[in-house]
């Protein structure tokens, strides 16, 4: 058990890992896409995004497309680094 890697608890939660993994493949995505892709409820997704934003792993931009409000989410440099470290730790642990 002592070999178990020291994993980032912000990223390790399955829902947040899913969000970060999706964002790592993208430049940016809107809130609707993350809802569709993760299957989370609006409230749940908002909570997870807030936690990621507090950790400075994502940045959230509220804007408009036409008359429609648009919430854009993108992974920050710190978020990408943290995700890469998490992946490497998991890869090393799982072999």
């Amino acid at each position: 058990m002592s070999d178990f890697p020291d994993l980032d608890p912000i990223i390790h939660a399955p829902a947040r890992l899913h969000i970060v993994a999706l964002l790592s493949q993208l430049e940016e995505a809107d809130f609707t896409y993350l809802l569709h892709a993760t299957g989370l409820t609006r409230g749940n997704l908002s909570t997870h995004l807030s936690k990621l934003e507090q950790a400075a792993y994502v940045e959230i931009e509220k804007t408009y497309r036409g008359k429609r409000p648009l919430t854009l989410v993108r992974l920050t440099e710190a978020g990408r680094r943290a995700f890469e470290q998490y992946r490497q730790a998991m890869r090393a642990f799982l072999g």
Partner: protein
Amino acid sequence: MTKDILRDAKLQVRRYWTEDGLPDLYIGLGFALYGLLSWWAAKDEAAWLPFVQAFFLPAWIGLSVLLLRRFKERFTYPRTGYVAYARPPRRETARRVLTATLFAVCLGLLVLWAVLGNPTPARERLFALFLPLVFAAVLGFVAAQQGSWRYGFYAAVAVLSGVAAVLRMDALSPVGRTAVLSGVPVLMSVGAVMLLGGLWVLLRYLRRHPRPEETP
């Protein structure tokens, strides 16, 4: 589980581009129109046709960025969300350009060999089979990248239409043979199947994801 989430997320992002069926419709329409042009060129010796053919595909590919974005803004983004894909690193872009150039050079050499050399029936058959195999390879690659059985099916149609055309080549008129050598059967059949597949997927997508109401 973590490994699954990471792998699935990658696949999910790749699949999202074709989830609405719009790329199938656009590519299928392009193939079908180019197939019609090639069929026309095989029948008619109008001097302007080769020019239209030469410009059609680059224009269609160039327009895809603009048109697909417009269609996605209208149909997809309001329903299941907007994404901007990360740009590949420069080295990856250079690798892709190099591969495409090498492929174009090989294709050009093959055309020269088949057309300007001594066109025996065996060479013609081999040449007629080459284009469907290229189509199948590209569509098969997309299928593998996205884990998409739909693109795998398109690849199978490309192979089958090519083989069927080559088997019937001896019984065809000179116009028919020229059409086969120009890739008309594979363009038309893959184009038609992609159009139908794209339409089916788009209708299913629109039914599953109704447009949300406008906020006042």
